[in-house]
C-alpha cells in the first residue's frame, strides 16, 4: 500500500515546497475557475462577448478624437487610431485583470470560509480570464492594421514575451491588492484612482518619445511601459523599447511579484477569519 498523504496543521506558515506541489495538485481547479468565469461573464447581456471589442474600440475612438485630432499628440508616425488601439488591447487586459484580481478574494468569501484549497488560485483565475478578451480584441487590431495599411514585421515573434510580462505585472499588483482587500476594504475605493493614475503613467494615449530622456529609466519602473512599447513595436513597428527600460520593468515586476507572493502567503491563513 502506498504511503498515505500526511497533512500537518499547526500555527505556522506552510513550507514553500509544499505550497508549490499543492498548487500543482489543484491545477484542475484553476482550469474550472477560469472556465466558470468565462461561462458566467457575459450571461444575461445582449451583446455578450462583443463587449471584449467594444471597450477598447470605444476608448480608441474617444482617444483618437481628443488626443489624436484635437490635442495633436504625436503617434510615432503610425495612424493615431492604430497607435492607441495597439496600446489599449494590453491596457484593457491589465486594468480588467487588476480590478478582477483585487476583488477576487472578497468576491469568493463563501468559498474561502467553507472549503480549503490554495487561495492563490482565486486571484490567478481572475488574472487569466481576461486574456480571452484580449485575444478577441487583438483580432480587431489586425482589421485596423489592414484598414490603415500598417504592416507587421519580424518583431511580432516577441509579442508573447510582452504578453507574459503583462500577465506577471497584473499578478504582482493583483496579489498585493487582493490580500490587502481582505482586511482593508479601502482597496475598493482606491482602485478607480489607481487605474486612472496608472494609465496616465503608461504610454497608452501618447508615445514614450515625449517623455524627457532623463526620466525614461524611472518611467520604465512601471512595467506596463515596457509592455505597451513592446506591443507597439512588435505589432505596428514603432521604435523598440530601450534595453534600460526593459531591464527596469523586468526587475520591478520580479520584486513586486516576489513581495506579492510573500505578503499573500503570510496573510493567507487568516483570510477565513478576517474576510
Amino acid at each position, binding site marked *: 500500500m502506498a504511503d*498515505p*498523504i*500526511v*497533512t*500537518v*496543521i*499547526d*500555527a505556522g506558515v506552510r513550507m514553500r515546497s509544499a505550497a508549490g506541489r499543492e498548487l500543482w495538485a*489543484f491545477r*484542475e*481547479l484553476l*482550469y*474550472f*475557475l477560469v*472556465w*466558470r468565469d468565462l*461561462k*458566467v461573464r457575459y*450571461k*444575461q447581456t445582449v451583446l455578450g462577448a462583443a463587449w471584449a471589442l467594444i471597450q477598447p474600440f470605444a476608448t480608441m475612438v474617444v482617444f483618437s478624437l481628443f488626443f489624436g485630432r484635437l490635442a495633436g499628440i504625436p503617434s510615432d508616425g503610425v495612424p493615431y487610431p492604430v497607435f492607441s488601439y495597439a496600446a489599449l488591447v494590453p491596457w484593457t487586459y491589465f486594468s480588467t485583470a487588476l480590478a478582477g484580481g483585487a476583488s477576487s478574494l472578497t468576491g469568493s468569501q*463563501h*468559498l*474561502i*470560509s*467553507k*472549503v*480549503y*484549497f490554495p487561495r492563490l488560485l482565486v486571484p490567478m483565475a481572475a488574472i487569466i480570464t481576461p486574456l480571452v478578451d484580449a485575444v478577441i480584441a487583438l483580432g480587431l487590431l489586425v482589421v485596423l492594421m489592414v484598414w490603415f495599411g500598417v504592416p507587421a514585421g519580424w518583431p511580432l515573434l516577441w509579442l508573447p514575451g510582452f504578453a507574459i510580462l503583462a500577465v506577471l505585472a497584473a499578478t504582482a499588483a493583483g496579489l498585493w491588492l487582493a490580500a490587502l482587500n481582505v*482586511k*482593508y*476594504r*479601502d482597496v475598493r475605493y482606491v482602485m478607480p484612482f489607481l487605474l486612472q493614475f496608472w494609465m496616465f503613467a503608461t504610454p497608452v494615449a501618447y508615445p514614450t518619445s515625449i517623455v524627457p530622456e532623463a526620466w525614461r529609466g524611472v518611467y520604465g519602473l512601471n512595467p506596463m511601459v515596457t509592455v505597451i512599447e513592446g506591443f507597439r513595436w512588435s505589432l505596428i513597428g514603432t521604435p523598440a523599447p530601450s534595453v534600460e527600460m526593459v531591464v527596469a520593468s523586468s526587475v520591478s515586476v520580479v520584486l513586486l511579484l516576489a513581495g506579492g507572493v510573500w505578503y499573500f502567503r503570510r496573510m493567507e*491563513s*487568516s483570510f*477565513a*477569519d*478576517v474576510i
Partner: protein
Amino acid sequence: MSAAAVTVQGLGKQYTLGAAAPEGHLRERLAGSVLGLARRLGGRGVPRAVAPTIWALRDVSFEVASGEVVGIIGGNGAGKSTLLKILSRITSPTEGRAEIRGRVGSLLEVGTGFHPELTGRENVFLNGAILGMGRAEIHRKFDAIVDFAEVERFIDTPVKYYSSGMYVRLAFAVAAHLEPEILIVDEVLAVGDAKFQKKCLGKIGEVAQGGRTVLFVSHNMAAVQRLCTTAALLEKGRLVFRGEPRAAVARYLSDEGRVRYIAASAKTEPYVAEAELVDAQGGPLPRPVITEPIGLRATIHLPDAAPGTRFGIGVLMADGIPLFTSSLDDVGLTLPAGPGTITVTAVVPAHTLLAGDYHVVTCLWHAREIVDLQEPAFSFSAATGDSALYRIDAERKGAVHVNCRWEIA
C-alpha cells in the same frame, strides 16, 4: 509510528472579538501607528486599547483511529465548527498541532461554490473540482451523482431555476461521491426534506462501513448514536468527554436539559432563571422517553410586582419548525403578581411526541410586549420507550403521535 488517522495535540484557536473593527480600516491602522509612535516617544500617555479575545477552542487533544466514525457533539459555541474548520485547513490554529493521514474531504456546507447561472451539469464539475476531485474522476462518477440526486431531467437547466430541494440534493450528491479516506462533515443534513435527510445519513453510514474515517458534527443525537462508533463532547471550547456515543449523548443531554441563566442583578423585568425537564414526580429527567409524560419546568423570577404577566412555552422540532405552543392562558391560569420566584411546569402527555430532537422556547409577556424570550431555553432528545403496547418507532411518518380512537363496524 501511530496508526491514527487524525492526531490532535493541544489545539487552540483564539479569536479577537470584533476582529475587523480595531484595525479594519487603513485610517484606524494609520491612526494606531501614530498613537503607537507617540507612546514610544513619550513613554506614556495614550493607553493601548486591548481588543477582547476569546478562545473558541482550547487545549483539545485526541486521536481518531483509522476507520473510526466520530460524532462531535456540543452546544452552540462549544467549538465544534472551529475544530472542523481547523481540521479542514480553512483556518489555522493559534496553538497546537494536528496531523491527518490520508486524503481529506470536508463538507462544511452543501453546495459551496455552486453558481446560480450555471447548469446542474456544469455545477457538478465546478463543485467537484472545488471539493478536490479531478476532471476524470468527476466524469467517471457523473452518472452516479445525477442518479443519487434524482435530477436527470433538469441537469442542463441553470440551478437558479431549481427548487431548494433539488439544489440541495445535487449539492449533497457531489459531496457524497468524493470518496476521501477521511470525511469531515458538518451539520449539512439540517437541510432538505426528511426523506432526503435519511438518504444522506444512509450515505454517510455507507461511507463509514466502507472502512473510512468520518468526523461528523451533528445535533441529531439519534444519528450520532446510530452511525458513530465513538463520540467527542465539546463544551466551551474544551473536550470534556471522549468515548462511547451513548455515554457522550447522555452526558450532553443531562447538561443541556438544565440551563441556568446568569441574569443581570439590575434586572427588574420578570425572567426565566432556569428551565429543565422533569418527570411525573417532579424529579430531574435526563433521558425522556415518549411513552412517559415529559414535564417542561421553568423557574420564573419576578424581581418586582408585575401583575398581568403571562407565560407560555413552545416546542420546536429539530429543524426549528414549531410543533406546538401552550400557555397558562390556555387553561385559565395566571402568574402571581410577585415579587418572588415561582416554578411552572407544562406536562406533555405520554404518547404525544415521536422519538427525536426538540427545542423548548419559553416566553414571558405583558399585554402585547415580550419581556423575556429564551429561544431555545434548552433542547432535548426524546427516545422511543420500551413499552410493547405502543410500538412507536422512529420511522413513523408525521410530526406527532395522536392517540386516535379506532372503530371497526
